[in-house]
């Protein structure tokens, strides 16, 4: 097996007395779609925030593509190819969908220290941005302000922004959160197409989606990895069934 894209070693984080990440060790192989599941409050978003650099872990190491990024700010990690989506939609509301994505393209293409020339007219930025929108099925809504998109469309936009960064690893924090049945199914389709092209860490509550998509699954409870392995193995693990999956898989 090739070197893993992401290696978490004994990651710890607590807020006050509350331990939210309790010695998490995890790795994600190249091209793998690794899902992290667990009940609410298990510390999934906290984990993603530490990987993307919005929170500093108290202890442990995060190695991304062979580089120790534990102490790097999030913009540096993004430069190295780490992209994320947010559980609570985080886009630029007064920018059009296309501009939102074009900003991500711009971060990857050449200098942003250009003080003249209208960025909005640069095909070098717009074409890849448009392609990313097409990928998530938003191309017809390119000119619409992000604030005016529907919830499901905003979720798709989140994904398009992350894609446009041409990342080596996608961190997806509940990409389907709050979407309806149809929109959710569409997003699963998008992820299905992306699978294999990108390494992904997927946090998701929708178990059907997770078991349809994941190569490997890790179960997180109370900040600890309870079990980790192929979907079938995790599904059969008695500890997992009692702790978490039980009634959901009936």
């Amino acid at each position, binding site marked *: 097996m090739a070197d893993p894209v992401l290696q978490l070693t004994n990651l710890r984080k607590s807020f006050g007395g509350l331990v939210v990440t309790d010695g998490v060790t995890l790795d994600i192989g190249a091209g793998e779609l690794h899902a992290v599941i667990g009940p609410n409050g298990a510390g999934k978003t906290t984990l993603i925030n530490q990987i*993307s*650099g*919005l929170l500093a872990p108290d202890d442990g190491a995060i190695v991304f593509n062979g580089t120790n990024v534990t102490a790097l*700010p*999030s*913009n*540096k990690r*993004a*430069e190295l190819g780490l*992209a*994320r989506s*947010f559980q609570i939609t*985080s*886009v*630029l*509301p*007064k*920018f*059009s969908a*296309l*501009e939102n994505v*074009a*900003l*991500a393209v*711009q*971060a*990857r293409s050449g*200098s*942003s*220290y*250009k*003080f*003249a*020339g*209208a*960025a*909005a*007219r*640069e*095909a070098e930025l*717009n*074409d890849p941005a*448009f392609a990313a929108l097409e990928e998530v099925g938003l191309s017809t809504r*390119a*000119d619409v302000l992000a604030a005016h998109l529907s919830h499901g469309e905003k979720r798709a936009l989140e994904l398009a*922004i992350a894609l446009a*960064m041409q990342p080596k690893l996608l961190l997806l924090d509940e990409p389907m959160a709050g979407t309806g049945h149809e929109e959710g199914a569409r997003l699963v389709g998008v992820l299905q197409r992306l699978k294999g092209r990108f390494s992904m860490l997927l946090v998701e509550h929708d178990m059907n989606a997770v078991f349809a998509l994941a190569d490997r699954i890790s179960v997180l409870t109370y900040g600890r990895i309870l079990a980790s392995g192929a979907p079938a193995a995790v599904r059969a693990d008695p500890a997992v069934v009692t702790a978490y999956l039980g009634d959901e898989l009936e």
Partner: protein
Amino acid sequence: MTDTTLIAPQRKPHALELAPVFIFLVLALAPVAAAFGPETYLLGLFTRVMVFAIAALALDFICGYGGLVSFGHAAFVGIGAYSVGILSAHGVTDILISLPVALAASAIFAYLTGTVCLRTKSVYFIMITLAFGQMVYFVAGSLAPYGGDDGMTLQVRSTLLGFQPFKNDRVFYYAVLLFLLAAYLACRAIVASRFGRVFRGAKENPVRMATIGYDVFKYQRIAYVIAGMIGGLAGFLLANVVEFVSPAYMSWQRSGELIIMVLFGGIGTLYGAIVGAAAFLLLEDGLGSITENWKLIFGPMLVLIVLFARGGVVGLIERLTGRAGRG
């Protein structure tokens, strides 16, 4: 390529798009009209309007597009003015020296204070920029060799290679107009540029910008330096207009007035800052000629504008023409 043209944002042509052209046309023709009235007075007033318009423009640039509400912008005006004054006290009056010095001094000050200020957010940013403004104000007041609290008079306006072209009020007027035009076009270009897009994005969602890969702080600091330099330019010109420099240029009230100008005209429009500066100074002048207690009228007017006329003059026109267009 076809994609790009297809998806370029479709904007309705609007009367306001011509507003900057109209504004600069009026400013270019004003001296002609002034010739029919008290010419020196009117030229002086309009030159001052344009100088403050430059300072307000810079403030609108960081405030309206970057969300950085600086309550100490008058400091840059003061630094620019004092650069002229101090150099001139030592016999250096050539614009080719004093202007670059004024710009460099404000840039350095902006870089250093920006490094500290930009670590803070929202109201803390407002207050720390205010603190730095006060600092410069007190330093200027204690410069005993350069007039201290009383300020100092300039011997001559800036010279150019030994000539005194700015001695002529009209020539000086058009020079200031050119500087204003240049500052306006520069700000407009920057706002639309790659850099400007990052800067605007940082206002809307700094966390998102960081996770895309931008070091927001660095972009904001550059913008802060740009705004500081434009403020310094305004100060350089102001010293030449009034032929006098004084700490009063950088008191916190002056910074407040610059904010008022920006809000007056309509924040985040750039040309609104020009309209705002004109409205503010002409009102001050007009009300001042009616009664010495003009502040009794002006103060409540500010309150009313905030309460009832959001978007300033530009917003008002937008609403009026918008309604006219639909009706």
